């Protein structure tokens, strides 16, 4: 074995030091809370408990978000004020436009596909004998990283030139049906669809679980009444099931749209954003960390924020209604 275990020790020491240091912090907080007399005002207790979290939120999210917004009006080095130039770049450059177009395709298709597959599957396996196993099978990809899923699917899409034996499942199927093997990930605009398949594959289980719970919540009387009226399965689905679980469907669609907008890993692992497959989050990374174009990267991040905000607000409203 060539692996050098001793070389890894400093990491584990760091891990233990980190946890120990953190435990000291936790002990200090508890000690402080205990030592503030109960007759003191409530806010002095709250301060001790809240300060660590609020300070981290300020340093990690609030101040950075403000700074990124400022950076989006500066040039690539973050020195000179350029006004709206970065935003103009985003909406005029052909490359940047492709990125916006792809993001639009993603955010339109993924929620619809994920919800439909999840819904169909949840309805089909509902109250069957193998329901829990069936749901687990589809739910499992949720635990797999987008990077892992990317590799799994690259393998499915793998290409060998014609005449050679195929090792990718998809090309094997195409060849055995008499077709020619294709480089699925290198032909725009179809390749974006092949990437979307991966996202749908990962997320459909989430939709299944959420929608299945909603379906189980439909009152038995309604189902019974529809049955007595002689509703066919299709009628049942469109007239009873779907209207009853509307709010759950909306929740799934909304969470999927948010997740899709921020998506980065699948594109990065599978094509690296080449062959016209890049999306906003991936391009933001490229501009900022590879090309050192701080202004353009920041503008993309701000744009992402602008796109996500209304969806998140809508989701919050939905939640509040669902609670009622």
């Amino acid at each position: 074995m060539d692996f050098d275990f001793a070389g890894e020790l400093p990491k584990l020491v760091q891990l233990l030091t980190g946890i120990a240091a953190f435990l000291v912090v936790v002990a200090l907080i508890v000690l402080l809370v205990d030592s503030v007399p109960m007759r003191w005002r409530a806010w002095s207790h709250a301060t001790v408990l809240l300060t660590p979290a609020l300070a981290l939120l300020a340093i990690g999210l609030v101040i950075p978000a403000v700074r990124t917004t400022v950076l989006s009006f500066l040039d690539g080095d973050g020195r000179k004020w350029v006004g709206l130039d970065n935003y103009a770049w985003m909406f005029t450059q052909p490359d940047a436009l492709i990125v916006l177009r792809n993001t639009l395709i993603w955010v339109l298709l993924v929620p619809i596909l994920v919800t439909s597959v999840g819904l169909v599957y949840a309805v089909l396996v509902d109250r069957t004998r193998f329901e829990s196993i069936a749901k687990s099978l589809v739910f499992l990809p949720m635990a797999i990283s987008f990077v892992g899923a990317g590799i799994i699917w690259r393998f499915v899409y793998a290409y060998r030139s014609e005449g050679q034996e195929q090792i990718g499942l998809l090309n094997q199927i195409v060849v055995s049906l008499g077709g020619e093997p294709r480089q699925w990930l290198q032909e725009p605009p179809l390749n974006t669809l092949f990437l979307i398949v991966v996202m749908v594959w990962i997320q459909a289980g989430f939709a299944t679980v959420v929608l299945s719970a909603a379906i189980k919540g439909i009152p038995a009387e309604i189902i019974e009444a529809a049955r007595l009226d002689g509703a066919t399965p299709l009628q049942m689905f469109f007239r009873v099931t779907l209207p009853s679980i509307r709010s759950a469907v909306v929740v799934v669609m909304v969470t999927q749209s948010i997740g899709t907008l921020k998506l980065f890993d699948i594109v990065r692992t599978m094509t690296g954003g080449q062959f016209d497959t890049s999306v906003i989050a991936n391009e933001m990374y490229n501009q900022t960390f590879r090309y050192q174009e701080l202004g353009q990267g920041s503008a993309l991040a701000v744009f992402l924020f602008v796109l996500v905000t209304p969806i998140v607000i809508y989701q919050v409203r939905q939640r509040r209604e669902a609670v009622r």
Partner: protein
Amino acid sequence: MTTLTQTVARAGAETAPRRVRRRLSGRIASAVAIAIAVLWTTPTFGLLLSSLRPEDQIKTTGWWTFFADPQITLENYQEVLFGASSSSGQMMSFLINSIVITVPSVLFPLALATFAAYALAWVPFRGREWIYIGVFALQIVPLQMSLVPLLSFFSQGVDLFGVQLLPAWDLEGPERFVQVWFAHTCFALPLGVFLIHNFMSELPGELMEAARVDGASHGMVLRKLVLPLVGPALATFAIFQFLWVWNDLLVALIFAGGTAENAPMTVRLAQMAGTRGNEWQRLTSGAFVSIVIPLIVFLSMQRYFVRGLLAGSVKG
């Protein structure tokens, strides 16, 4: 549960012709369900099977030929985990990094979010509604918006109007993990506070009252009363955070760098996919190593995870 049994009982009472019709449409339905299940399982199964095949076979024949010519080896795993050459994968180092990154990145936000959630739920001070709404609203900020400034905080420190709030960190070697922990902790807090607060605020108020009348401090109430009761909520958040951190690529790429010194497995896999996209024997076994730990956690804690998912998405 009662509605379920009721429905089942009623379904049993339906007339014979209707049952026949249901069976028929049931058959098509089963076929579609099975097709989806197969479609969802096959890609992972293919990856697992491939990772166990000898290198020359992976590269020349499809994994389905395994059934005609079964050959199994652990050599790919040996190579990708323990190989010393830079092209081999060195996954063991990255696996250790993943663990070193993930454990604190779950524990830190878990503890801090619990403190904050308790204060927001059970310490009656003015303005707590506003603070809660503020923390909740921070979920709007996409990760991408805070990456660049946070990175510069680490390298240059934080100063506000000329006052140095935090010194520059300039961490090297194993100390660089601290950056990743810090970033993950910050990013996890809004959701953590939200989830745990939701659960905590539903605890019966009389319980807290009674304890306070007996002279218990907030620290005592939190430790003795609240913590044991909110176990499921903590578990839910811990699993969410574990899966999120373990599977994360973006945060790690930026705050941990790309070397065996600090980077987790996701970073290494993404690199290998980019530069060694045809070394399938390493990619398949490497990917499987990175998948297997979250899968174990996921399968054993699925109950909590689903409960948290439903609480977070349907009920809120």
